[in-house]
């Protein structure tokens, strides 16, 4: 009964593949996504073709999708930085980061990027930045495991709140994805507390 398009992903169904794929940008599945995504999104996303037919719901939805993608990239970069700086937390943080990788992949799959366009890349500056130790007020946040966990908790809360605030402005299908991702991120707050507690 879900409004979201069912789109089984063979690659994502394999844990071994997904465990490594979460940190790398997925190949553009524009054609697949166009087939599975809503007509509104397709019309709004294909700006090259959009000139030929008036899209019923243009920029706002795409802009919000770009914002959600950028937010996930930022979260992943923060996890990368904290894991690099505090290796003792890695075992607890990697599964959560992997879930963000899947959030990101799913959000990106809703974007329709015309071949040769740089619109998709332009929206995601964090993707181009190689993950590594952040210094001096970078995405790593404060030093020290306990402070780093608090930093990630706050980032999760903010990301979830942003998604929940925006989901009345998007299509039903994207709203469902955003609500689900927000719910996942809210549960990360408690999971992070368990990581801090040595759980």
């Amino acid at each position: 009964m879900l409004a979201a398009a069912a789109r089984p992903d063979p690659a994502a169904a394999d844990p071994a593949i997904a465990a490594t794929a979460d940190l790398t940008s997925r190949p553009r599945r524009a054609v697949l996504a166009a087939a599975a995504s809503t007509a509104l999104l397709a019309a709004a996303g294909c700006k090259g073709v959009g000139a030929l037919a008036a899209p019923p719901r243009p920029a706002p939805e795409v802009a919000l999708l770009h914002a959600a993608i950028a937010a996930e990239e930022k979260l992943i970069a923060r996890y990368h930085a904290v894991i690099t700086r505090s290796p003792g937390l890695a075992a607890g943080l990697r599964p959560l980061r992997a879930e963000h990788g899947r959030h990101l992949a799913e959000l990106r799959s809703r974007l329709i990027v015309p071949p040769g366009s740089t619109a998709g890349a332009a929206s995601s500056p964090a993707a181009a930045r190689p993950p590594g130790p952040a210094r001096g007020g970078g995405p790593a946040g404060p030093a020290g495991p306990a402070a780093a966990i608090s930093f990630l908790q706050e980032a999760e809360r903010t990301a979830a709140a942003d998604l929940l605030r925006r989901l009345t402005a998007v299509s039903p299908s994207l709203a469902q994805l955003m609500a689900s991702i927000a719910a996942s991120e809210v549960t990360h707050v408690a999971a992070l507390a368990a990581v801090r507690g040595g759980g």
Partner: protein
Amino acid sequence: MARTTARRQPLTAAEAAVLQAALAAEHAAVYGYGIVGAHLTGAAFTAARADWVAHQVARDTLESMLRSAGLAPVAAAVAYRPPQPVHGSATAISLAVTLENRVAAAYLDLVAAVSPGVRKLGAREVVAAAIRAASWRGRTVAFPGFPPGMLGLPKSAGSTSGRG
């Protein structure tokens, strides 16, 4: 706020249908947590009781919204059969996870509604169900409310801090 907004807006037929489905899921959860709680003790029992109350509150909210729209809320069944036999704390916790998954899925349908109030109520309850489910499960999932395997992996390994 959101509840008041939703209550004052007329419901489309589609919205009424998903609200009734969510109410049916809440009825099942209220019944199911009675079974869950009967097999738990201590902190786990306290958690089960709190979640049982949360589902009663959510049920009442849905019934109120439907009545305000002039609709008769779907009634609870006399009894519900658990998907698998419950004979101890492990199976009780498994049932709690199942109940929350079903509730989350039902509320995710509300998020597809046109009315902002219904949509926000759905999102809020998807989040609430995801929190309860993660607590019982002892780990998080990437896409609460979606059927396993529908988006990405069916499940993932989060932290291990489950109740009970």
